[in-house]
């Protein structure tokens, strides 16, 4: 009986894939035009798979176009090939900012940004699988090193959790950057594209957060609104910073050099954020 059920499950799975391919034909075609390293069976070693990513893209594209009405500036600064890092500011209680940059880069630049998630994300059920299928990787040094060596584009938020949980009154004031991105950029001689994201800080003002001890999450956020507010996102991509200029890869071991490089990136991101705030006409416009 279980053999019959297994066959039925397999058939349903195949039918589901076929229907999904038809329903999301356009995003799927778009994603298939972006090369990825198939490790066999249609997945890369980190679990990225175009069909599942197409589902994510089709949902996020709607958010991108109709809910957050994203306006992007300077997409020509995103390298179309080779290893590079997109480094942005992080805020908004839930990581819609990362999703919007991910969607924006795929749509505008035809590149798949590999978002680097915090260490706890791979232990979240369902979320971890959905993220992995969309190209997100766990934030370990080994993973990002492997991706840069493979010539991929990384999307990193060096503020991490302290950035996304900062109080509303401190919006658009960047938290201290972790320095890993600068070390990677120097070691792998990869350009860093600073990204200033304006809008995310107002999408879900946080009223409280509950510490949880039994879960892999650092806390449970209590936002003011159950859904993100339809703020308008402005994403500003800055000119690539070549942190490695005049440096050797082994200089990535020098804490002073790395700290300076990281500060340079932080200032570039802050400048883009400030520019975005100056240029926008209002939170929802």
């Amino acid at each position, binding site marked *: 009986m279980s053999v019959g059920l*297994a066959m039925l499950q397999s058939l349903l799975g195949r039918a589901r894939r076929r229907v999904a391919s038809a329903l999301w034909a356009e995003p799927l075609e778009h994603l298939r035009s972006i090369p990825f390293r198939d490790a066999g*069976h249609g997945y890369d*070693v980190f679990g990225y798979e175009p069909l599942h990513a197409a589902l994510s893209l089709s949902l996020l594209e709607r958010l991108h176009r109709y809910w957050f009405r994203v306006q992007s500036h300077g997409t020509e600064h995103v390298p179309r090939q080779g290893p590079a890092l997109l480094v942005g500011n992080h805020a908004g209680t839930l990581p819609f900012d990362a999703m919007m940059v991910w969607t924006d880069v795929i749509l505008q630049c035809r590149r798949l940004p590999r978002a680097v998630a915090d260490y706890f994300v791979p232990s979240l059920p369902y979320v971890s699988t959905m993220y*992995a299928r969309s190209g997100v990787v766990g934030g370990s040094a080994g993973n990002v090193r*492997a991706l840069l060596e493979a010539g991929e584009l990384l999307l990193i938020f060096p503020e991490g959790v302290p950035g996304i949980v900062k109080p509303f009154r401190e919006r658009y004031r960047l938290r201290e950057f972790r320095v890993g991105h600068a070390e990677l950029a120097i070691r792998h001689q990869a350009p860093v594209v600073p990204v200033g994201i304006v809008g995310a800080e107002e999408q879900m003002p946080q009223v409280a957060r509950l510490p949880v001890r039994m879960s892999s999450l650092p806390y449970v956020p209590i936002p003011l609104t159950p859904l993100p507010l339809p703020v308008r996102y402005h994403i500003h991509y800055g000119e690539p910073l070549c942190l490695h200029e005049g440096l050797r890869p082994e200089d990535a071991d020098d804490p002073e050099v790395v700290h300076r490089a990281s500060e340079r990136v932080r200032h570039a991101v802050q400048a883009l954020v400030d520019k975005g705030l100056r240029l926008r006409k209002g939170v929802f416009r």
Partner: protein
Amino acid sequence: MNERPEWRSPRGVLVLGASTPVGARLCRRLLEDRALRAVMAVGLEPLERAGLPEDPRLSYHRVDLTRARPVHDLLFGTARDLGVDVMVHLALHRANDFGDRVHVQNVESLRWLLSLSERHPTLRRLVFRSHAEVYRVERGLPSLITEDHPVDLSADAPQWVRDRVEADLLACSRMGMMSGLELTVLRCAEVLAPNEGSQLHDYLSAPVCLRSAGFDPMLNVLTREDATEALRLAVYAGGLQGLFNIPGADTLPLSTCIRLSGRLEVPVPGPLLAPIYEARRWLQGTQFSYRINRGRFHFAAVLDGTQARQGLGYEPQHRVDWPPGR
């Protein structure tokens, strides 16, 4: 990894664990080299069950590796007389058993072998087949596992894992420290085939496969053909010492693995899996232990074979013929 000095082809090869499917295949592959003078196959099973080819250069020896004296006599008797210069060790206990005897076979026998090999007059090279299961798999660690990835030294690891880690570290600790003896350790991905001690194969042999709801990690599995080829390359890689990951050609999510095996996949809450599979083990005498596999049933763990490609020239070529074990 050391640079390769001048090294000639092996004259004779001793294969411990030759009655395992990979061991028998390796003997067959080695005998294809007409320049090789002798292949000594060592196993515990009777010759007729070992599945070895007939060849005048092949001799079969039934030796219990848990007893030091027969091992000594084998090495300093027939092996010395035949001028055996390479030893391949694949004789770890495959079943998920526990106890002193299993530990002696997995760890203590290797300790004797290393000690004996160091003063052996003809042996120059030892190839030890280790396992990818020695690596720790948990959140925060890379999904792509390189040779410097942390090993599983957790206090609650089952003996199956502990023994493998201890044997692996024992071999690695002697690498480059033994005069006149080269050591190569191959950390092979799981060989998804019957009689290989594969936990995953046992898991997939059940008609219904339970997995942790919400998690669908990436796995990498190896075929017997590729495992054999990696061992053969290591036998011939004279002058090269080191630790090498041996990945397979199949990298896929657990759910796809279950589907390709023609099994029914049922996601259940993670905490239920350990008691269910422990009960199955006790009631049906099966091998799969969720405790051994908890990490890789949640987090991706794929071996990075760069070092093996560069050092040994190994590249996985054979995909699993799904469903495995036909």
